[in-house]
């Protein structure tokens, strides 16, 4: 990937008003090597106190939520990492990941890396972790990410009669046929279909290796992880209270990956309580500013509030399985009636970036204004609707899940559509999240529906194929276009990531015309840090780099 944005590093300039609770280190930096251009190495040492919520798991194969990944990334390392400034994928534990046909990949590993218990990080460490994740009876959340590897279908089984009395049969295989060990430092991966972005995806924590001792007792390993990363756990995971990591002495990688002596994650159940702790000087980094306190935080802590565009995507899906949405001019008209920025400003205090396309602005391959119908133009909207023969449905039903305030912005959307096209609308926000998602899965929405998406890996394909590909895993609009599918397949098997991106962009252009969904906005990252922090490091792909943050030394 190319460098597109300069370093996202902010330096605290405000005076230290709150004393550091406990940190003092006589250690001087002996290694001033930096991982990326322009990053000045601060001093090592100190205790970085981090706002966290309770992770679901600390097992790389199971943790797929942000709280889990934030900790796992410091405990474990994988084949690839993302550059802290550019987001570009770089080899971490891998020496090389190469392929001639984008389908059969050869992974060569660097030597000398070990787990905390002394086990070597070799080919087996990766193969055993991926097999464990893929085997469906293990019910590991990251099984999803193994779906490109050949042999995945034999690793999962489904109940023959749904929820009926019959038990699901044992899967046919216990190991992925696509993974083959060549030597301790080399293994091959065969994919089901070619995918040029394969090496880039390897930086996701679901692909991190696991020690044999860890898999022998996954429950114990979840409580006291046996990692291979720059930090190791001190004691055990104190559920709902905190997790303390200290610098690992077995880490052979970049020494600047572990700047603070200690990472203390304090677990909160409520972000307002966390914000109070931040205000009281008990927290050094808080990544989730409570939405109700955002304006106040910006006014009061503007100097130490880090903001950057984020990658979470909110869209209004259109049920293409219903007749009234089949004409693309109707969909274009609906999209043209919406003016995003006033909604973002009025309802969300400006905490989102209006979408002008289908992929995140932080991604390599992003282009502004891909979606020509994502700008408000009521006159053109009306004209398009008239060309399509007017609105054929009944009242437009806008769907959202209950209890999280979606009705506020959906109402604004409804009002704008009504003003532009004269279509009456009603809002349905009575379904709780599980049932709402089940309704999406069953394609039972009767009108436009709110849904979101977050990227799985830093290739723009992650925003395209799962959502709009024929039979895509989260294609809730049931959009299908052979031309689009063809471009995605061509992109997947392109010789390089650059060529692949060109194909993906062409596919995105098709979406910009067909409008299977109405893109609404992308999230913004807002992270508060304290005046103890010397240098705050944010990675646009893998989020806050807690290990790279330096503290002011006293």
């Amino acid at each position, binding site marked *: 990937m190319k460098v597109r944005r300069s370093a996202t590093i902010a330096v605290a300039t405000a005076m230290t008003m709150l004393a550091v609770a406990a940190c003092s280190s006589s250690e001087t930096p002996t290694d001033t090597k930096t991982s990326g251009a322009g990053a000045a190495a601060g001093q090592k040492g100190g205790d970085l106190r981090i706002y966290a919520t*309770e992770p*679901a798991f600390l097992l790389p194969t199971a943790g797929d939520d942000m709280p889990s990944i934030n900790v796992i990334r410091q405990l474990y390392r994988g084949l690839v990492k993302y550059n802290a400034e550019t987001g570009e994928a770089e080899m971490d534990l891998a020496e090389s990941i190469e392929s001639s046909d984008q389908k059969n990949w050869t992974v060569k590993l660097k030597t000398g890396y070990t787990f905390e218990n002394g086990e070597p990080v070799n080919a087996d460490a990766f193969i055993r972790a991926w097999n464990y994740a893929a085997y469906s009876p293990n019910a590991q959340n990251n099984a*999803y990410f193994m779906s490109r590897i050949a042999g995945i279908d034999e690793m999962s089984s*489904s109940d023959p009669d749904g929820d009926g009395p019959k038990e*699901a049969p044992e899967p046919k295989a216990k190991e992925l046929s696509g993974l083959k060990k060549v030597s301790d430092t080399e293994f091959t991966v065969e994919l089901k279909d070619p995918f040029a972005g394969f090496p880039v995806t390897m930086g996701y924590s679901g692909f991190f290796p696991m020690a044999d001792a860890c898999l022998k007792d996954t429950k114990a390993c979840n409580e006291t992880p046996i990692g291979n990363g720059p930090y190791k756990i001190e004691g055990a995971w104190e559920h709902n209270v*905190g997790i303390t990591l200290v610098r690992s002495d077995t880490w052979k990688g970049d020494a600047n990956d572990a700047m603070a002596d200690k990472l203390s994650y304090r677990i909160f159940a409520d972000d307002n*309580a966390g914000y109070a702790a931040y205000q*009281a000087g008990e927290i050094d980094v808080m990544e989730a500013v409570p939405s109700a306190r955002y304006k106040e935080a910006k006014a009061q802590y503007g100097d130490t509030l880090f903001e950057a565009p984020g990658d979470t995507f909110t869209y209004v899906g259109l049920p293409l399985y219903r007749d009234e949405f089949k004409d693309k001019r109707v969909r274009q008209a609906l999209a043209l009636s919406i003016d995003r920025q006033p909604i973002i400003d009025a309802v969300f205090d400006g905490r989102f970036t209006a979408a002008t396309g289908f992929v995140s602005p932080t991604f390599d391959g992003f282009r502004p204004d891909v979606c020509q119908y994502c700008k408000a133009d009521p006159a053109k909207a009306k004209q398009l609707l008239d060309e399509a023969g007017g609105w054929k449905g009944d009242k437009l039903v806008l769907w959202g899940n209950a209890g999280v305030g979606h009705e506020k912005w959906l109402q604004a959307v409804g009002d704008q559509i009504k003003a532009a096209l004269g279509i009456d609308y009603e809002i349905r926000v009575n379904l709780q999240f599980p*049932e709402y998602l089940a309704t*999406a899965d069953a394609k039972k929405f009767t009108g436009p529906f709110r849904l979101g998406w977050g990227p799985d890996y830093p290739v723009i394909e992650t925003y395209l194929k799962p959502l709009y590909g024929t039979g895509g895993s989260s294609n809730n609009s049931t959009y299908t276009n052979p031309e689009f599918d063809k471009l995605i397949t061509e992109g997947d098997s392109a010789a390089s990531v650059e060529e692949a991106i060109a194909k993906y962009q062409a596919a995105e252009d098709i979406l910009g015309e067909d409008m299977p969904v109405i893109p609404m906005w992308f999230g913004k990252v807002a992270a508060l840090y304290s005046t103890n922090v010397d240098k705050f490091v944010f990675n646009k792909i893998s989020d806050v780099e807690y290990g790279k943050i330096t503290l002011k030394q006293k």
Partner: protein
Amino acid sequence: MGRYVIRRVLQFIPTVLGTMFLLHYLTSLGIQLTGNPVRALFGDRTPTPAMMAALSERLNLNDPCLTQTGNPCIGLFGERLVNIAQWDFGISLTGQREVTDIIGAALPYTIRIALIGFVFEAFVGILAGVLAGLRSGGFLDYFVKISTTLIIAVPIFVLGIVIREFVAVKFGNQLRADPNFPEIISRGFLAAGYKPDYPWASLFIPGLVLGATSLAVTARLTRTSMVENVRADYVRTARAKGLMPRRITGVHTLRNSLIPVVTSLGVDLGVLMGGAVVTETIFNVPGIGRVAAQSARTGDASVVIGIVTLAALIFLVANLLVDILYAVLDPRIRYE
């Protein structure tokens, strides 16, 4: 006495069973009405049917009755009872931890904060009540009456947030800015919530907030009781005998005034131990109240059932202890 206790303990069984059935029915109905909570774990990423099936089975959410609205799921309840009899309360939805582990880890925090709250409400509450009762109509009496009314009138979530924002954060920051101020106060007692570095000190303010409402009730109850008993015949007799005023108040008046107060305190102890959902959330105390609130929000049926069953048990035991205490306070009460 022994037989009375045994009879009471036997009465626990139908009460706990009833509670558990009600909880089971309500949580099952919740799942029937809002869908399989496993689906929500995956969010926008549609899981494969194999994944849904594997996880639903592991979490015991694959019973077909959970898709039939209104079905009481008697079979599932029976299964649950058999498991619970073997001390298996199931596993949590997020994180798949044993519910017994979750409760075991959270209980010490709840006990600590409940203890602080209870000592505060009992000690200060009774003291305030006695002082007000002895000087009925005086300044102190009005002070206690007005201040307790105010405390009762303010909901606990308002009180908690106001104290957190103004006392712990704003006032605390003033003290923390002064390096000479003892840290145990500025960073311990005035922490913005529970802090692992100060396991007792940082629970002090949350404990006070937790005990505040009950303190007001205790003070008013004690006061009323005292006012009544101060005029009682036996107190007049004691005074006429020439007993020390301290003895008259302590042994004759107060002891007899405590019966309604003990009832209220005993019930309170059960409530406090059952987890303070609001206070623990506001002050980030990792006790069972905070866990219960979180689990209710995510639809984590096993955890909710485990915690509420435990709370019901604690409540029953506390009530039993109160009833036994009556006999100690008033020799006229006999349990045969």
